[in-house]
């Protein structure tokens, strides 16, 4: 089966955040872009690393590193542009990714791991790839960053 021919088998985009290879359902992903110019300004929302200007639109850049790895992800050459729905409003965000992305078709198996943001698992030539619930992965990163702020304040 080919993921690009529109078969009934669901397709997924596999990508790498730091050392972890994970996947998102294909319909969450809009495009992959080369590292854009990142603009930052003061804010208090965890996991947002800045914003990029893409075709005249502001695209927030969200780092999945804190949720997936427990630390910010390394510098990225590519960004995956994903579609979020926040309060019934659709919004495109960019996620820094390491290495290349891959579009695959496959069956997702249920996963009962520890990470609440993993909704299933793909078997890719014997390698198990976790499929993410994007919103839960962002929420996990938010929680970790919020917990680390009081600790940092105590240390300072």
């Amino acid at each position, binding site marked *: 089966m080919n993921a690009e021919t529109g078969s009934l088998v669901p397709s997924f985009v596999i990508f790498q955040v730091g050392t972890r290879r994970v996947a998102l359902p294909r319909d969450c992903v809009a495009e992959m872009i080369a590292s854009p110019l990142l*603009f*930052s*300004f*003061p*804010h*208090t*929302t965890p996991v*947002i690393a800045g*914003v990029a*200007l893409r075709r005249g*639109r*502001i*695209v*927030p850049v*969200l780092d999945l590193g804190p949720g997936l790895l427990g630390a910010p992800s390394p510098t990225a050459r590519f960004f995956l542009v994903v579609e*979020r729905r*926040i*309060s019934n*409003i659709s*919004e495109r*965000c960019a996620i820094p990714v390491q290495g290349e992305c891959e579009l695959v078709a496959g069956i997702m198996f249920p996963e009962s791991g520890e990470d609440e943001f993993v909704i299933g698992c793909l078997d890719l030539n014997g390698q198990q790839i976790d499929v993410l619930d994007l919103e839960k992965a962002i929420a996990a990163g938010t929680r970790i960053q919020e917990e680390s702020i009081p600790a940092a304040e105590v240390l300072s």
Partner: protein
Amino acid sequence: MTQPASSSLMPRDTRPREQVAVFSIAQYSFVISTASIQEIRSTDGLGGTVVDLDRPVLRKVRHIVERDSRAYYVVSGYEHFHLPASRPTTVLILRNVPVAVLVDKIEEMAEMRVLLALPQSFNGEERAWYRGLTVLERKVLPVANHLGFLTSGELRQLEEQNPGLLQTAAAQRREGGRA
């Protein structure tokens, strides 16, 4: 008289324009509408009376400054935006709110042609801090909301803990001027 051919072919830019001041705090630049600024002064040449708050209930507000018979809460820009301590040299005295903001410096005056909504992904204090984002010289900059430096709740809190101080500071100056 025949108009130059190019003028009729040029599309007229009908986007609303807004005069803005670009200011900086620490390593960041911000934009604020000049319509919301009453006066821009250097911290050295501010003049007027500076009164310490009896009870500084907010970390970012420690003083009141009086200018032209009106008193303003002085908001530290770097404390407001949770930035590392910086060296403010300029005060933005705002219009229609009793707020003066300490900033590092004014970088330039400019014309803002686009105001983009802050993306929904931002869900923290910045939703009150900014009216949105703009693009100046290919840089994305936040547009400060002049009503966001002190929210109505914060103003109420300051007034409750320092009752009448804002009015007293202004009245003292008026009386001093008459004497």
